[in-house]
């Protein structure tokens, strides 16, 4: 169990990186608390696996340091770092039985056979493969293989952290949910630092205390699910989290109001922004009210999604989505208002804090 510090980490796979584009990981500078449950969320290719491999020591970062509990481990081997990692591509040892696969990391560390047996049985029942213990791992199905791969990551009880790299991709939704709840329970019982990589926001939001959102090799925001939802620091977070994502439209500041097209939207304070920054207004569909009063919109489509409906409309020529409960009536001459609490201003994609400072 350890606090993990990533000190100005940058990584490029190529030999001589010059521009920002050459870096798979642009700059990561941040700390994972001891015993935290983190989710690393971001689209494919944003550098999640790269970051995990740097933490576990499979990769040495091009620049920067990594510390466990304040001790520099940047040049320590994977084994010495004592980290468990579950890979995106499930790895199983074909010629071994299911049991031996799970016992492998323990036996390699010379754990007494009695303890090995106990640990392996615990994990076998957790991943629901007890009856398969004696079977050769070779002929198993893809989801069973993924469970074994997951189990091997969980079997050790003395690790500094457990890293999961999209560990449940081929497991069916119900089993996925069961396993995720068990991971959470294991986390509460054991207090391991856990990092869970996924590109599925539901998975991230349900697993983690803190969600780390990555985009193009950078961490754009770290926060609780609520923070990510209400105050996205970066337009990408607004767009990636929530369904449908946040509405964005180009805007200009005039005094203490935002101007979108020919409409003025009052703000609480006067935002301070750089003079040439590209400004955008961001508002979540949940904070858009469609009623008889407000600014004019034209509705193009209404989608019924169970207990809610999504209104697709056009506001000053920009697309706008609104979410409302199923029984809300939509007037013939619809107008729109934005709840002040949901208003966000972005300058060059980054959020401008209320009160002025950027």
């Amino acid at each position, binding site marked *: 169990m350890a606090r993990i510090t990533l000190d100005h980490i940058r990584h490029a796979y190529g030999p001589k990186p010059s521009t920002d584009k050459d870096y798979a990981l642009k700059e990561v500078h941040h700390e994972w608390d001891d015993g935290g449950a983190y989710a690393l969320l971001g689209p494919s290719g944003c550098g999640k696996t790269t970051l995990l*491999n740097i933490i*576990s*020591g*499979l990769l040495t970062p091009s620049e920067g340091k990594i510390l466990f509990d304040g001790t520099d481990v940047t040049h320590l*081997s*994977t*084994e010495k770092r004592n*980290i*468990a*990692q579950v*890979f*995106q*591509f499930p*790895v199983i*040892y*074909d*010629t*071994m039985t299911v049991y031996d696969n799970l016992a*492998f*990391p323990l036996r*390699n*560390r010379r754990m007494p056979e009695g303890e090995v047996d106990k640990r392996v049985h615990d994990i076998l029942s957790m991943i629901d493969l007890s009856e398969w213990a004696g079977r*050769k791992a*070779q*002929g198993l199905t893809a989801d069973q293989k993924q469970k074994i*791969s997951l189990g*091997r*990551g969980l079997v050790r009880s003395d690790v500094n952290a457990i890293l999961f790299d999209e560990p449940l991709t081929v497991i069916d939704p119900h089993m996925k949910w069961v396993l995720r709840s068990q991971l959470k329970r294991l986390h509460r019982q054991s207090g391991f630092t856990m990092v869970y990589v996924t590109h599925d926001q539901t998975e991230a939001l349900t697993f983690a205390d803190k969600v780390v959102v990555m985009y193009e090799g950078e961490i754009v925001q770290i926060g609780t699910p609520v923070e990510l939802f209400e105050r996205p620091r970066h337009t990408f977070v607004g767009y990636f989290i929530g369904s449908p994502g946040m509405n964005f439209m180009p805007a200009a500041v005039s005094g203490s109001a935002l101007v979108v097209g020919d409409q003025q939207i009052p703000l609480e304070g006067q935002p301070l922004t750089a003079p040439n920054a590209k400004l955008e207004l961001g508002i979540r569909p949940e904070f858009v009210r469609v009623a008889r009063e407000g600014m004019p919109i034209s509705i193009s489509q209404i989608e019924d999604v169970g207990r809610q409906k999504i209104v697709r409309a056009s506001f000053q020529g920009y697309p706008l989505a609104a979410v409302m409960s199923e029984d809300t009536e939509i007037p013939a001459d619809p107008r729109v208002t934005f709840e002040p609490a949901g208003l966000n201003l972005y300058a060059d994609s980054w959020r401008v804090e209320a009160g002025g400072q950027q």
Partner: protein
Amino acid sequence: MNKTWNNKAWFLVLPVLLLVAFSAIIPLMTVVNYSVQDTFGNNQFFWAGTDWFSDVLHSDRFWDALVRNLIFSFVILAIEIPLGIFIALNMPKTGIGVPVCLVLMALPLLIPWNVVGTIWQVFGRVDIGLLGHYLRILGIDYNYTQDPVDAWVTVIVMDVWHWTSLVVLLCYAGLVSIPDAYYQAAKIDGASRWSVFRYIQLPKMKRVLLIAVLLRFMDSFMIYTEPFVVTGGGPGNSTTFLSIDLVKMAVGQFDLGPAAAMSIIYFLIILLLSWVFYTVMTSQDAKS
């Protein structure tokens, strides 16, 4: 269900059938024909039944050659398979080293058998050969034309030089097909170098190794050209393998009957041993 019989299909099989008939079945039947008859020339044949077979099986000459063959194949496999695996494991996986190594490895395989024999025949000569000459200078009493042990060593080293590459290339093909994730997982699991070999690399190489063992066994068991060129079967009979003996008997002494019987026995032994190898090496797959 009603199957429609279409006899035209036979025409498609016919070319293959003819090819196999001319290349394998008819020559084999000729040999069978010789093996059960006696001839004194003039195309006169007399029925000899299984006499030739029992003659061959009761001759020391046959058994001695067979034992030499078995020892030779065993030594060849015992050296070339581990050595081939070892070289393959240490070959580079990326960069400019890959094509360089592959070409170097492929070179011996491209040389015709009799040329390989000639190369080593000259190479090992004590008067003008590089190897023989310098071994002499180093004080080693080496002479493959007079010492049976030296003759064996020469033939074996020659075969290792010629054919280990085949094992290397096959194993290398198996090794490069292993995804990186396996090695990463092994590191995380704290696996030793030996465990990585035993549980990741060896299983991936198993199929190609089976092919390598079969090819090397059959080929070394049928070895003819190289020892014939280098030692001519000598000194004495020390490197007279079955194939060399067979040619001596059939071409040298014109004993067609016993030679034919021996051919068939030889053929059956290779068939049997290859089958044993195959069964043993694939039996584990069948179990799981």
